């Protein structure tokens, strides 16, 4: 599969259109939206221009995704006006938004696992035969064409979506957006689950969309991406619009100040690592299909980074160490004693906790209050011979969530009503509360805004200073380089290299991860 081919035609085109095109393609003004007990958006405005990329920036819970859902007809605003090409409209359903050529790649991938790629692209607007029935043959042909134009011809239009890798799924989502000849394309944190290579591909695509004159809304917490791809910015804070303009006129610090309301300088915490004896050692760990011969050591007070491209198998290894998936061979030793966890309960008891990366599915229990989420793995400590003690649960939940600067109205609030980033804080709090020896964080800052990121990093530094050991799985190079003492690089289910993080450079890491010789 040749996905790395360069596409000269597109990249050589002049970037972005005129500085200030005459009419915005889409204008939102005075939009407000409340949920029971939460004011998600208050009187916000936003304009999208053809051939330009607008970045929407804001902390977790600032209301970005809510706005996306309003623009795509999924939520109805309580107040405000939407106009397209200068004409006021209401988007009373997703279908209506579709009809206006608005399409979105949502924060959560929302596609159909059990349907074919072609159907995923054309569901709802499939070509018809003259009898009015679906014309499967034309649909497949068109799907192949759309994928071709996106240079994603390697994706089989007849394949089931569930047999595709995550990056290809994203491409299908984009293909769907392309297939309706969208005029407005919205991307809500599209890069959060992608590796660097795939992010590059995505950027090429966005350039292509721009060149086609589409208006693009791009949401991300990563400033390097924003500065690379966007022309304009709009900043939200606590559901209100606090600034907008051209990116070339605004510096990062200025934007961060707008976003947080204070200065944040994200410098990785300065640590004086006091590395001790090995705490956890793994050797020869193998799984029939996912990974092979994994061996490494984690020492007391150490942060061990795990780097790799998405899909390298890091999460699977960590889940095996914490007893969630079964291995076929290999040994795990904790504090010199061999352990063989058969479930997460075993590993938590032994002192190893795994903070999963899929927050919604594996992390939070939506439908339950924050404090019950936090106490869930620690129930044996907050209860006495099986009988619950609420006061202790609240105390436990409070001490950890407040340290992570959780934004919530009360500890009895349903986690489901928190923004993505705040949910992530609950997830981290939950596993920290078990007082582990070894903590494995899988993409701990995925989807977390810059202020909270600093909090999480600071917290990690604090943890190791107290003598804990941390494994941090991350696909973000700055995070890996900024936080780890040593870096394990994984590629295709095997360990490719172990580097000491002294004078380690990004290039070496990327090369080992991708398997390209230096």
């Amino acid at each position, binding site marked *: 599969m040749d996905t790395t081919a360069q596409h000269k035609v597109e990249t050589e085109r002049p970037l972005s259109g005129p500085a200030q095109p005459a009419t915005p393609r889409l204008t939102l003004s005075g939009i407000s939206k409340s949920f029971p007990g939460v004011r998600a958006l208050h009187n916000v405005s936003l304009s999208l221009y053809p051939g330009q990329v607008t970045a929407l920036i804001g902390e977790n819970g600032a209301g970005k995704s809510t706005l996306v859902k309003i623009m*795509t007809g999924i939520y109805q605003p309580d107040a405000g006006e939407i106009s397209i090409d200068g004409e006021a409209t209401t988007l009373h359903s997703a279908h209506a938004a579709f009809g206006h050529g608005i399409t979105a790649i949502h924060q959560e991938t*929302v596609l*159909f696992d059990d349907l074919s790629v072609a159907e995923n692209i054309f569901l709802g607007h499939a070509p018809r035969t003259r009898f009015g029935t*679906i014309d499967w043959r034309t649909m497949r042909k068109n799907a192949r064409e759309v994928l071709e134009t996106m240079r994603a011809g390697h994706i089989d239009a007849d394949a089931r979506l569930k047999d595709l*890798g995550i990056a290809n799924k994203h491409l299908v989502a984009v293909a769907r957006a392309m297939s309706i000849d969208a005029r407005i394309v919205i991307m809500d944190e599209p890069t959060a689950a992608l590796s660097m290579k795939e992010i590059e591909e995505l950027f090429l695509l966005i350039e292509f969309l721009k060149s086609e004159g589409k208006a693009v809304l791009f949401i991300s917490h990563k400033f390097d991406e924003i500065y690379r791809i966007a022309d304009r910015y709009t900043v939200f804070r606590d559901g209100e619009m606090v600034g907008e303009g051209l990116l070339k006129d605004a510096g990062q610090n200025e934007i961060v100040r707008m976003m947080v309301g204070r200065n944040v300088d994200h410098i990785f915490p300065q640590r004086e690592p006091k590395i001790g004896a090995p705490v956890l050692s793994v050797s020869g760990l193998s799984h029939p299909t996912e990974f092979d011969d994994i061996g490494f050591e984690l020492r007391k007070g150490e942060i061990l980074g795990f780097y790799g491209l998405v899909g390298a198998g890091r999460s699977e290894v960590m889940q095996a160490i914490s007893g969630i998936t079964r291995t076929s061979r290999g040994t795990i030793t904790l504090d010199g004693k061999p352990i063989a966890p058969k479930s997460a309960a075993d590993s938590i008891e032994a002192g190893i906790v795994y903070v999963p990366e899929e927050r919604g599915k594996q992390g939070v229990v939506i439908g339950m209050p924050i404090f019950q989420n936090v106490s869930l793995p620690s129930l044996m400590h907050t209860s006495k011979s099986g009988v619950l003690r609420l006061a202790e649960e609240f105390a436990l939940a409070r001490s950890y969530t407040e340290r992570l600067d959780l934004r919530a109205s009360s500890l009895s609030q349903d986690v489901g009503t928190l923004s993505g980033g705040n949910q992530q804080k609950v997830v981290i709090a939950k596993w920290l509360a078990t007082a582990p020896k070894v903590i494995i964080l899988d993409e701990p800052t995925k989807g977390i805004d810059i202020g909270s990121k600093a909090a999480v990093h600071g917290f990690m530094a604090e943890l190791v200073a107290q003598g804990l050991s941390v494994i941090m799985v991350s696909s973000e190079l700055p995070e890996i380089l900024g936080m780890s003492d040593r870096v394990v690089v994984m590629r295709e289910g095997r360990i490719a290299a172990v580097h000491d993080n002294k004078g380690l450079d990004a290039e070496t890491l990327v090369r080992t991860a991708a398997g390209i010789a230096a």
Partner: protein
Amino acid sequence: MKNLRKYREIWLLAAIAVLIGLISTRFPGFADPANLRQVFNDTSILMILALGQMVVILTRSIDLSMASNLCFTGMVVAMLNAAHPAIPIPVLIVIALLVGLVLGAINGLLVWRLNIPSIVVTLGTLTIYRGATFVVSGGAWVNADQMSPDFINFQRAAFLGLPVLSWIALLVIALFFVVMTRTQIGRSIYAIGVNPTASVYAGIDVGRTKFIVFCISGMIGGLAGYLWISRYVIASVEVANGYELNIIAACVIGGISIAGGIGSVGGAVLGALFLGIISNALPVINISPFWQMAISGSAIILAVVLNARGERRQGRIILRKAEAA
């Protein structure tokens, strides 16, 4: 895995062939075309009902009220026929479809507008519709003597060597096949089952589609109501009592996933046939009728175990992909 899923119908067909083979060793006449035609005819109503249930299950819903709907509609048309024997049968069938549609629409509206889980709604209407049968009939039965000869004989008339009932079943199967594979609504039904959230984002009106699905199962229930009553020539409150579970069992055996999104018209038909063959064969191969229940129970468990095997996700197979690359 793709293969197993693709060929599930073929596996089921093979299982049915083996079953027929086994029965034939004890009762040689069973595999005769004439007998198989009869088995098909005997199973027609179950097949039709299973198709109606299938579309509901595909959307992650369930319709427990189908058998009660059948009972109610059957009673209504039987009473109409008894009172006005002159009403032509096609008109009665249309009435049955409409009555069924109304009952289905009630389920659908409650699911759609009030967002009550379908299992709760239809658990309620399961008893309500059957009770309503008692109310409209005053508890009295309508028996063969009160029904007009046309009413009884319509489905029995032979047409090109098959009874009309079989033709109706074939027609319904063909209709469902086209709808489920070739129309927007059919594909939306699948999409909703696979991923409801994504369906909303894709512009499908999930609530309205569910409403439609319940209307379909309601109409099917109504149609089956007429067919059932005219077949068994008695309309009473107890008609098809508990049959809702047979319908669901047929779907399950046919590989329709209770979690929605997975299943096919062929599967539902074959699942119904499988059950039909068992209930047809047990009496003729001299297995005590007391075994019938345990056998179909085991068949259901076996089918769901096998289907789950086929559905099981095989992981992402990083290593093999790596080797292939």
